[in-house]
């Protein structure tokens, strides 16, 4: 395996494959030197209306599946399709789909990381009628990636995409299966072998790059940077410790949070429902079309009220649907109190450090949809994350003295915000105030906010900078894998009637595996039967840093280990007799591409990959 893909690349390309928007940024490798990277953001040509192509900095991550009679022929051509219809991706997909949601694929990324569905099965849009040909979460993600590649190739004919160093970002909370699926979508889209990078890390890279070298003045060795990334559809937390090695500052990512489906779109929707209720009380009933227009208007009003602390109200106009604009429009307003109650206090309440997100037991059927966060309070999720990671820096060089057993949560010293939600200083300040309350209660110094982040494009920009940094051009964040992984093994106890044999967890991949490393599970051999799939229960932990490969856990706290989708190993029958048992050892490989692989290795050296993403159970 070569260390770095495409050694002759001219550009390092960074792709932010977001839940609601995607973006592409690039660094010209030849024109960059040291921490001075020559960087740009690609304007992405996309349909903004039938027959109309515009280059916009963001590509809305939506796919529209038009009815055959819906659009005139030739109206769906893109600059690179030679007059042929292209898949409807981007701005027009978003706006068309608002009027015809049964044909709109949205949040494909959340579906791609949804463990309870078959992500290769054509299931989207979930509420589409029979005649609509659905697509799989994998295929939808592939379409977005293909569009970005084609947009690049159309504007850079002398630097073909597949010859560049490409980095695609993923939430830090993605499990191995979701990472693998993202890499697969990129491969299908013709990306060669792209590298994956966690979004909060990308945000920090972008901040480092944007500071033009001055970041060394803003953070010191011993700092712990908390990255709070609240995007359109997800919230993601990471902790990055700043170490000093050989006189250089080196960021180490020490912890990542859980996957939380909660973002700016939920906030807009919450406000729209509030205003709709207000209108209903006055006898005005909104239809579905008006409700969407209202959500859009509420977003604008929210942005104004959260940006300008002096504004007390903001008017909201829901336009009429017909051509009578003045006669048919509905006028109302959003007040500061409402925004404060619903957004600032609703999504960012000033809770105590001991607060935890509410968890309701779900009815069995809710698994059909996306597993949205049940508690809307970002600050409660944050409190839970910091408490769980209280010991995250215990084993870190230079930090060993800093972990105080009396601390109930990990104390960050600096905060970097990312995501459009934090364009509002009020919300960023609310998170800072809440966090600093917690710190003050434990007698710690207040954390400071890192200035100068580019909230919309930081992830794409940081990803491109990372592609550059990998080639030795700049600072790199270390840290390796952010979780340890375990397979479930039945303990060899005599059977007791009425009791399931207790399950033990065998560590197959420890925390912090560096990219490009491979570890062998010592001692243990598994007998696999040729041609017969073997399933293992699979667990991940974001807190058990001390476990080595081969460690066996007989018991654990429920919040220490999370059960992931089961994994499967199948020995193909080639060259062997079906039914034969083969002794294999398990190896864990942290790939250069940023994915984790489990490999079964036979005594004769033959290797098979263990699949994280097991297809639907009927197989």
């Amino acid at each position, binding site marked *: 395996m070569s260390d770095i893909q495409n050694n002759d690349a001219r550009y390092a390309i960074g792709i932010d494959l977001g839940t609601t928007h995607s973006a592409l940024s690039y660094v010209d490798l030849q024109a960059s030197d040291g921490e001075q990277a020559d960087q740009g953001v690609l304007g992405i*040509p996309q349909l*903004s*209306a*039938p*027959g*109309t*192509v*515009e280059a916009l900095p963001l590509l809305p991550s939506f796919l529209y599946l038009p009815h055959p009679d819906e659009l*005139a*022929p*030739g*109206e769906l*051509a893109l*600059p690179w399709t030679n*007059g042929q219809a292209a898949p409807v991706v981007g701005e027009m997909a978003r706006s068309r789909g608002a*009027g015809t949601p049964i044909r709109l694929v949205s949040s494909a990324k959340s579906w791609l990381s949804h463990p309870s569905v078959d992500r290769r099965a054509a299931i989207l849009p979930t509420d589409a009628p029979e005649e609509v040909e659905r697509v799989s979460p994998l295929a939808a993600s592939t379409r977005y990636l293909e569009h970005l590649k084609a947009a690049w190739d159309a504007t850079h004919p002398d630097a073909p995409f597949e010859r560049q160093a490409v980095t695609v970002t993923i939430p830090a909370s993605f499990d191995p299966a979701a990472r693998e699926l993202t890499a697969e979508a990129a491969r299908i889209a013709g990306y060669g072998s792209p590298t994956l990078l966690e979004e909060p890390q990308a945000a920090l890279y972008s901040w480092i790059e944007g500071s033009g070298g001055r970041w060394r003045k803003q953070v010191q060795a011993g700092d712990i940077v908390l990255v709070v990334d609240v995007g359109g559809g997800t919230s993601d937390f990471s902790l990055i410790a700043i170490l000093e090695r050989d006189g250089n500052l080196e960021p180490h990512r020490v912890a990542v949070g859980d996957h939380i489906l909660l973002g700016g779109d939920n906030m807009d929707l919450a406000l729209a429902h509030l205003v709709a209720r207000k209108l209903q009380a006055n006898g005005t009933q909104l239809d579905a*079309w008006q409700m969407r227009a209202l959500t859009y208007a509420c977003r*604008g009003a929210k942005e104004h009220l959260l940006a300008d602390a002096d504004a007390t109200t903001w*008017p909201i*106009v829901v*336009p009429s*649907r017909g*051509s*009578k*604009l*003045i*006669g048919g*429009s509905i*006028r109302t307003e959003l007040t500061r109190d409402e925004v404060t109650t619903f957004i600032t206090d609703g999504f960012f309440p000033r809770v105590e450090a001991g607060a935890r997100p509410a968890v309701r037991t779900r009815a069995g059927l809710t698994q059909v949809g996306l597993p949205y966060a049940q508690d809307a309070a970002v600050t409660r999720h944050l409190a839970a994350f910091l408490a769980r990671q209280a010991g995250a820096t215990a084993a870190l060089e230079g930090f060993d003295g800093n972990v105080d057993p009396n601390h109930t949560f990990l104390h960050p010293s600096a905060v970097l915000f990312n995501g459009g939600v934090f364009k509002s200083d009020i919300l960023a300040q609310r998170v800072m105030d809440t966090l600093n309350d917690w710190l003050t209660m434990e007698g710690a110094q207040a954390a400071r906010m890192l200035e100068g982040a580019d909230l919309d494009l930081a992830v794409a920009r940081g990803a491109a900078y990372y592609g550059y940094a990998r080639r030795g051009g700049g600072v790199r964040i270390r840290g390796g894998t952010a979780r340890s992984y375990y397979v479930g093994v039945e303990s060899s106890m005599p059977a007791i009637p009425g009791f399931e044999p207790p399950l033990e967890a065998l560590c197959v991949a420890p925390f912090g595996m560096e990219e490009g490393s491979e570890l062998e599970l010592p001692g243990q051999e598994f007998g696999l039967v040729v041609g017969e799939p073997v399933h293992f229960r699979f667990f991940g932990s974001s807190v058990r840093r001390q476990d080595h490969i081969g460690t066996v856990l007989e018991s654990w706290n429920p919040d220490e280990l999370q059960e992931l989708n089961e994994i499967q190993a199948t020995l193909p029958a080639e060259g062997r007799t079906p039914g034969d048992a083969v002794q294999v050892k398990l190896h864990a490989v942290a790939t250069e591409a940023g994915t984790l692989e489990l490999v079964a290795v036979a005594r004769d050296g033959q290797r098979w990959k263990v699949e994280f993403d097991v297809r639907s159970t009927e197989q």
Partner: protein
Amino acid sequence: MSQPTNLPSFWSRLSLAFGAFFKTLGDAEFAARVRDDQVGPIAAPAPAPAPEPKPAPAPLRIATPDAALQLLGLLQREARLIDFANENITVYADADIGAAARLVHEGCARVLREHFTIEPVRGELEGARVTLPEGFDAASVRLTGNVVGKAPFTGTLSHRGWRARDVRLPQLADKHDAGIIAPAEVEL
């Protein structure tokens, strides 16, 4: 657009006919156009037109309708401008008109911001004294009032002017009919 909508009345046709009669007599080029535009007798196809003699006065350019229609489409989509202008506002109270105007204003501003880069022609504040040197660009500065004498001219800036530095209109597909400013909507 293929169907002319305002046909000339009889009286204007009469006056047109007289005009055409005398112009055909007096103007050989016009006469040739009458001959060739299939209204009059059709002449044998002329040989490939010789390079036209440079017309003495600069001809007027005819703006292509596509870009104008496209801009109308954008203003309608983002700002509902056609709806707004075509509505009879006399029957509504100012508060209702104001509510709609917010929508129109916000949308128009968005269209201007996203598709044009517009900046003032003059950087000075309005009301400031400005001096225009000899050879100033008369297209970007209009003199009003007591326009006498020779440059340099000194006066008060009453409007800063606007200049479009950049225009970024969307590209259109080959067969796209820009004449449809907003399609009719039918909800099924």
